[in-house]
């Protein structure tokens, strides 16, 4: 079978497995909507604040569906021995991993669509202003956070500790990167840290695409920072890759 067909088959298996765990799938999609509803209620009537929250939650959704999901899944697959089993088959590693990555991309797109639709329906944010910018920053965010998620899985020693490792990265990053407030109003050092991290720039890009209509050309610095993180993430993801648990 051709490698493209094999990748598609793997993708379809990943999707089937994702939906066969319905409660996980449900909460996966509900989580950003719950946050959106909470903050939407808090800032009801304050359109300026809502215009920050909707792209903020959208950025968080991209990170959750790629970074968190892949750090978790790759640790699980490695510790369970599924990766090692796969490695013994003729399926090329790149084809296998592409199926997993495409599945994460699908979840990111689905979740973005839900957040955007909810923003339009309840929080006065309207349809996206710049579809090209939306596509570019979503793609850049997915590549960057997917690679960083795989890279993080290499640092997680066993499945029991996966949650602790992932939350220790995910929660501070979403809190500092302006998911729930405008980073511009934060104290200087918080702002500096946020500027150095990729999520703030993904949110800036999405904010441009969804709210202000600022396109890719006006946001190239944000794209450059995401690109740097993506490069680092890919290098770390590939170099540290382990097909099996370190316990022997």
């Amino acid at each position, binding site marked *: 079978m051709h490698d493209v067909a094999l990748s598609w088959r793997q993708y379809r298996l990943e999707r089937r497995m994702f939906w066969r765990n319905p409660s996980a799938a449900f909460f996966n999609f509900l989580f950003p909507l719950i946050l959106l509803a909470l903050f939407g209620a808090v800032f009801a009537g304050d359109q300026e604040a809502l215009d920050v929250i909707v792209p903020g939650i959208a950025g968080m959704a991209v990170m959750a569906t790629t970074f968190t999901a892949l750090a978790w899944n790759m640790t699980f697959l490695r510790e*369970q*021995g*599924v990766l090692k*089993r796969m490695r013994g*088959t*003729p399926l090329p590693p790149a084809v296998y991993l592409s199926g997993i990555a495409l599945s994460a991309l699908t979840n990111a797109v689905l979740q973005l669509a839900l957040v955007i639709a909810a923003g339009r329906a309840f929080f006065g944010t309207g349809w996206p202003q710049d579809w090209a910018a939306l596509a570019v920053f979503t793609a850049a965010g997915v590549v960057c956070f997917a690679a960083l998620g795989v890279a993080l899985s290499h640092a997680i020693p066993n499945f029991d500790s996966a949650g602790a490792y992932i939350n220790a990265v995910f929660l501070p990053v979403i809190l500092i990167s302006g998911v729930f407030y405008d980073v511009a109003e934060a104290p200087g050092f918080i702002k500096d840290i946020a500027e150095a991290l990729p999520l703030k720039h993904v949110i800036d890009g999405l904010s441009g695409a969804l709210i202000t209509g600022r396109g890719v050309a006006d946001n190239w610095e944000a794209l450059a920072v995401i690109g740097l993180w993506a490069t680092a993430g890919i290098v770390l993801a590939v170099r540290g890759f382990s*097909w099996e648990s370190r316990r022997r």
Partner: protein
Amino acid sequence: MSVAIEVRGLAKRYGDVEAVRGIDFVVARGEVFGLLGPNGAGKTTTVEILEGHRERTAGEVSVLGHDPQRRERALRERVGIVLQSCGMYRHVTVREAVAHWAGFYPHPRDVDEVLDLAGLSEQAGVRTGRLSGGQLRRLDFALALVGDPELIFLDEPTTGFDPAARRQAWDTVRSLRDLGKTVLLTTHYLDEAQALADRVAIVQDGRILAQGAPGDLGAGSTRYRVAWRDAEGEAHERVTDDPTGLLHELTTDALARGERLEELSVTRPTLEDVYLELTAGGDARA
């Protein structure tokens, strides 16, 4: 003799630990070859080098004419692997899993046929997360066989099985031999090696202590076991390398006393005797 696997001077070191210290063996095509030894002997390390999961420190290895370390797809298409312990996706059914795996290979076997061979026909629609340990092991077999491999690696295929499940797994291995497949299996069960393997290599501390057909391995030893029951009905057993002399002595004494040696038997050393004799030295060292 057409060669499936050739191993020369294979060594593997993990830091300071020498897991494999110079192993040589050859497995012919169509042969079931067993690596027999206690846990930690270096069996799994050896097999995982042949499977392409580990890189060797020294030595030459050829698997179906390939160097497994190069991890060529052409080799992986001809080999089936049952790892010692290995997880599986939980949310797919047995049939879906086997059918998915079939897609990896250029000339897969029929999925139903493989389910039947592995004894999983009744579980075809069951999610793998609901299978018992024995059924999961059979799924390992099915996934390794669906690509119609020429060579199958079985690492401790029946560890943790109940006796009935073991017999079933043995039947599967025998049917592989009947299909003309080459099988390399590791085990720490003597009876398994005896029952399945055409030839056995006894491994301990990363070395091969002896190899040959299970029957010949026993014949190579000179330690015969002589057992009998005396006039009081008490059982005796002596191990000797001169059974003729011992029997003469025993029968002469018995005749002189006018007694019979009840249940007299002379047993050629079994694989078990050879194994225990060979591996005892290692335990003493350890």
